[in-house]
């Protein structure tokens, strides 16, 4: 039962990163673009789906709370300020989707809040993951790292890395959804972003191995685990080929695969810890009566959520070319 919820949690986190990564990435690239026509098109590429994408963050949070309450309580309170700032970013970018079409003169405010909010939210997510990888300072089961204990050079590096990563996802999405100038521009951006992201991933992996000896031993003891980084490497090669051939669809799927392999590598490095070297999966699990009650939500309703997501993506499939996308 515990493993079932670990699985659903992993799926939710992955879906969140892949899906909301797309629209957060588009949000950041939006800030680098000018011209109402181009900006409007970029927004149209994510406007119908962003809300559902972001909902996977809430799904992640409530699975964590219901199935692993100790982790929910410990992580959220330890990362107090970064999470509040992340929420602030998500708020500002979320309202921009509706607000920017309600004004002309002040549209720049919502364009700024869309791009800025996306950037801040992404950076904070990266910082949080980075600080978690580095290790939380915990005494007697309680966070003791102080108000800004999470802010380290490594965490900041992870913040920047995630910004690059989401921007890469966003650029691949734009190539997939858009035409003409936006697509060509995104094609150029993919090259730079892809190289930066690959360099970043290698640096982080090596750093984690060097800092945490237990992780190094795990990888040395079980070399078959290298299948995950290897998948990432293959995906990177296919990505490079698909960009050289100006393909519109392969880059997105390959970048998604790179994210999956990075996520798998990270999760395997710390298994069975949920908060590295402090709380394991079994220590964190909610009582059996809670997990059993949630089980039906997991087997019946969770697949429904996947179905809704599929419906959403299939209704809005294909390239956007219509005029007057917004009502």
């Amino acid at each position, binding site marked *: 039962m515990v493993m079932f919820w670990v699985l659903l949690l992993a799926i939710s986190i992955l879906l969140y990163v892949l899906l909301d990564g797309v629209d957060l990435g588009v949000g950041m690239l939006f800030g680098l673009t000018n011209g109402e026509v181009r900006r409007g098109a970029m927004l149209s590429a994510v406007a119908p789906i962003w809300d559902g994408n972001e*909902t996977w963050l809430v799904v992640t949070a409530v699975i964590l709370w*219901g199935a692993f309450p100790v982790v929910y309580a*410990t992580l959220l*309170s330890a990362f*107090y300020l970064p999470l*509040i700032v992340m929420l602030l970013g998500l*708020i500002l970018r*979320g309202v921009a989707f509706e607000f920017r079409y309600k004004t002309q003169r002040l549209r720049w405010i919502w364009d700024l809040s869309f791009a800025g909010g996306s950037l801040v939210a992404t950076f904070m997510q990266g910082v949080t993951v980075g600080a978690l990888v580095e290790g939380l300072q915990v005494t007697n089961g*309680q966070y003791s790292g102080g108000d800004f204990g999470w802010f380290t050079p490594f965490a900041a590096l992870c913040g920047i890395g995630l910004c690059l990563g989401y921007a890469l996802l966003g650029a691949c999405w734009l190539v997939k959804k858009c035409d003409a100038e936006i697509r060509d521009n995104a094609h150029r951006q993919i090259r730079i972003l892809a190289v930066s992201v690959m360099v970043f991933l290698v640096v982080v992996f090596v750093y984690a191995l060097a800092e945490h000896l237990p992780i190094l031993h795990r990888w040395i003891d079980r070399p078959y685990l290298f299948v995950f980084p290897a998948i990432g490497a293959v995906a990177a090669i296919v990505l490079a080929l698909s960009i050289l051939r100006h393909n519109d669809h392969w880059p997105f799927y390959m970048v998604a695969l790179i994210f999956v392999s990075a996520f798998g590598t990270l999760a395997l490095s710390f298994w069975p810890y949920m908060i590295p070297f402090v709380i394991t999966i079994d220590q964190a699990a909610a009582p059996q009566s809670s997990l059993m009650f949630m089980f039906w939500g997991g087997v019946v309703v969770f697949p429904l959520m996947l179905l809704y997501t599929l419906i959403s993506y299939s209704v809005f499939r294909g390239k956007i070319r219509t005029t*007057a996308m917004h009502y």
Partner: protein
Amino acid sequence: MDMTALLLSRIQFAFTITFHIIFPSFTIGLAAWLTVLEALRLATGRPVYRVVFDFWLKIFGVAFGLGVVSGIVMAFQFGTNWSVLSKMSGPIQGPLLMYETFTAFMLEATFFGVLIFGRSRVPPWFYLFSTAMVALGTTFSAFWIMVNNSWMQVPSGYVMENGAFVPNDWTKIIFNSVVWSRFPHMLLASYLTGAFCVAATGAWYVLRKEYHAESRIMLRMGLGLAAVLMPIQLFFGHLNGGYVNTYQPSKMAAIEGRWNDEKPAGEVLFAWPDVESRRNLFAITLPPPFGSLIDSDSLTAAETGLNSIPPENWPPVVIPFFSFRIMVGCGMVMLGLAWLGTYLSFKQRLERNRLLLWSTFLSFPLPFVAILTGWFTAEVGRQPWVVYGVLRTADAMTPFLTTREATISLVIFCAVYAFIFAFGTFYIYRLIRTGPGGKLFETPRLAVPSRPMSLANADHIFPERSHAGAGE
């Protein structure tokens, strides 16, 4: 434990949840109303329903967006500020909110996208289905929230193990009389909010002599629905009083401004509760047995007074006392307006009665005030407990939260919420003022033009136009 951080955290939770509930209570009602409109349009084929639908959909879009972004904060705030609560009650509250997210949020988000952007991409039946799914999603969300909050009001179906609330009977947690009187109360409150906002908008257009057909649909449907729902709402409100009286004597005593045990009890209509000297100033009181009749449906029942409850278990008496009265007052005014308006509507005299039209127009804040004060009564009245009778609010906070952190976050929330609230309500106001037929401004919205040429020329073709009807 940092007492300042505790106070700031309480203010922050109160502020963010107050801000949040405004939007769901509006959109739950609007979603149901949109479903009715779309069904009517498909059934009758009258284009006016489409016009009214499209108009309210725009307003729905803005309010829904504000509800979504302020709601995400709630999913995190239990953990950030109230980590002791979330660790202890996680086995119960976590699964309940998980069911809310699973059953409601993804449903809403997906079909909201279809509603706003998908009209041309899906068949009409699917569009109606999407509208109904959004309405269903908002209802599910309200249900699980009420289950969750009702458990905090009247905890049941659990045992304490290793300092955590471990559920041992989920049917008691979900199917109890508290949930099933509070959930309809909240749902009806949301429908009434939608009804009064729609009716007020209709009344405004009638007064302005604009949008003849649309305004009459809004005015009559809004008031008519409210006329039917208001008495049902009062009935459920009375049932809610019953649960408070049974399970939360301290809240009931505060609401009633009752200091001494009475048998049978009188009923304080208005007063200023003086907590220092434990008495009511300027009291207007109905004699016994009115208090027993109202609280316990009995002529002889004994009612508990605050003096027989230790003061450290009292809520801040003044807040529930007044917020309850404001809520009931709003309800009475809405009942009067709805019945009178519907009566005049049957008599075909509504459109000529300017006083009633003005009153209806100005009534739109009432349902919001009623919902907020109702929640203040419920939540402040529950204090000093976060889980009534079991866990104190002061013991539920993140123990290492500092005043500095709490100050930073509260300032951030206040600033950002004030900013988006100001713009959000302004944009909704402007949409309503512009009306169903108007355009905010004259700019065709382009996505990607199929001809690359038009990209370069676009600024030339579509320069910033006049702000006709926009009036920024």
